[in-house]
């Protein structure tokens, strides 16, 4: 075998390896469909997605996941509302204002926060935040939307903050200098020049933070309270989609309708996060700044 053939073979071996991610993505879809699609022989897609009642173990069972979707969306939105200002402002602090030493420490803090296992945060929400909420607001339970949202916000902050920081850091220095040269204050430079230039990066960060929150399991499983109903206030319990899957899969008989329905929830969840990720990818490519000369 000549060296050239050998080199070509090596190249194709690596090419094959690089396809693994896509293959796995395909296998995920395959597995979810294989186990989950049969449910739609028993329930229509419309009744599944928009049905108001999730009673998978009643007789007859009902598989309406609308309350679960609402549960997921509400904690995601609320967590985003909490996490975005904190995360973005922290990113601004790190990239534009903080002295070098504090910058390094804060970056490590955010990285460690990202490293906290979700079960640990769930545990914290359960044994610390929940009793406190219950006592303070005199609630029947502290395991509710607001608790879950706060803990989820903690999980989203590292994603939002570190990606926003990258975006802010990438703003060319010329822009800042031009602004200062016109007599703008640091505040004006940040809000009128730096943030607008970094906006697509920050949007991507927010999208990815939301994708992370919507798919997060242990926190909502342990902290959201588990009520499969449309909530009336932020102090009510909900049962987001991942929580339902994790909580019920252990009890659902193999290939029963319930088991299939849980996989079908997985399909919904998969495509929901896929959508978020594709949008984030699109935004980051569409509006990416190339060099300092082009805008």
């Amino acid at each position: 075998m000549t060296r050239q053939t050998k080199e070509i073979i090596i190249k194709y071996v690596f090419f094959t390896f690089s396809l693994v991610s896509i293959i796995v993505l395909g296998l995920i879809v395959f597995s979810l469909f294989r186990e989950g699609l049969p449910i739609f022989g028993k329930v229509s897609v419309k009744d599944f997605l928009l049905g108001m009642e999730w009673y998978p173990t009643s007789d007859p069972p009902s598989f309406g996941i609308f309350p679960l979707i609402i549960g997921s969306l509400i904690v995601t939105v609320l967590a985003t509302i909490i996490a975005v200002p904190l995360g973005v402002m922290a990113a601004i602090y790190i990239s534009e204002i903080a002295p070098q030493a504090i910058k390094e420490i804060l970056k490590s803090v955010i990285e460690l926060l990202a490293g906290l296992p979700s079960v640990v945060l769930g545990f914290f929400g359960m044994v610390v935040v929940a009793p406190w909420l219950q006592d303070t607001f005199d609630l029947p339970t502290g395991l509710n939307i607001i608790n879950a949202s706060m803990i989820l916000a903690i999980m989203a902050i590292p994603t939002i903050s570190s990606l926003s920081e990258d975006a802010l850091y990438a703003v060319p220095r010329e822009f800042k200098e031009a602004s200062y040269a016109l007599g703008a204050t640091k505040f004006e430079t940040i809000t009128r020049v730096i943030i607008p230039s970094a906006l697509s990066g920050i949007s991507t960060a927010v999208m990815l933070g939301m994708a992370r929150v919507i798919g997060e399991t242990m926190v909502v499983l342990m902290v959201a309270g588990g009520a499969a109903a449309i909530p009336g206030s932020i102090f009510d319990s909900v049962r987001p989609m991942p929580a339902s899957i994790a909580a019920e899969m252990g009890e659902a008989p193999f290939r029963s309708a319930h088991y299939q329905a849980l996989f079908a929830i997985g399909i919904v969840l998969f495509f929901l996060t896929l959508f978020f990720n594709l949008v984030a990818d699109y935004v980051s490519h569409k509006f990416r700044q190339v060099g300092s000369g082009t805008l």
Partner: protein
Amino acid sequence: MEDMMKSFKNNSMKWRYFKQTLFFGAVRLSALIIALALGGILFYIIVNGIGAISWDFITKPPTDSMTKGGIMPAILGTIYLTIGAIAIGLPLGIASAIYLTEYAKQGRVIRLIKVGINCLAGVPSVVFGLFGLGFFVIFLKFGSSILSGSLTLGFLILPTIIGAAEEALKAVPQTFREASLSLGVSKWQTIYRIVLPNALPGILTGSILGIGRAAGETAPIMFTAAAYFTAKLPGSIFDEVMALPYHIYVLATAGTNIEATRPIQYGTVLVLVAVVLSIDLIAIIIRSYMRKNKRW
């Protein structure tokens, strides 16, 4: 207040700096809140968990329906699963990254692969759990086992490792590649002898962060590997294992006596956090050391 506003507007420079001070205050406060959140959580876990930690706690199995005794099988299980995830994720991730940085030319295929990697990174952990259940446990008939759990976790951390490896490979100066190729050394030998050895420290530190994630994940192993309780330690990769994250979940939500086992719960949480965060911290320290002592 009304007067104050007027005086600010009359003196526009003062007003502009007042806004700046206000904004900087808010920004600093945000950073402080985040730091306090981490500090508070860690402090609370350490204070409550430290009492449960003892030599026996770490080296003995649980007893009395998991209301007493230690967590040794769960520690061991987590170690097995993490090593398994590394064994799968690291070689695949490095190989992917080598193709993407060293061989690939810009084009549609590469764009597709990169989008695929980003999408894989975004797949929720519970969906990975379903995938592991549907594919490894059922379709490939591996059963709920170390093998199924490791494969699931390995693919979960694959995008992180690809990202870390890509970054480290790109950081190797192009001039090294050119120098080697100009000597008539083949491309593969250049990659193997020059590029990889120089990128390896960066690849490893970057990957450690993914490894920390594998050690702490719960949802992906719930249906693929983790057992509520095992009387024996695993004998092969086809056995189920206990694992720290799942053990915490079980004790905190479904134990025989949730309130009474709180100290054990805190202790287990502390052990898990210590394991995961020390893995991360090591990565962070090595990385900052490497940045300061960069050789090129």
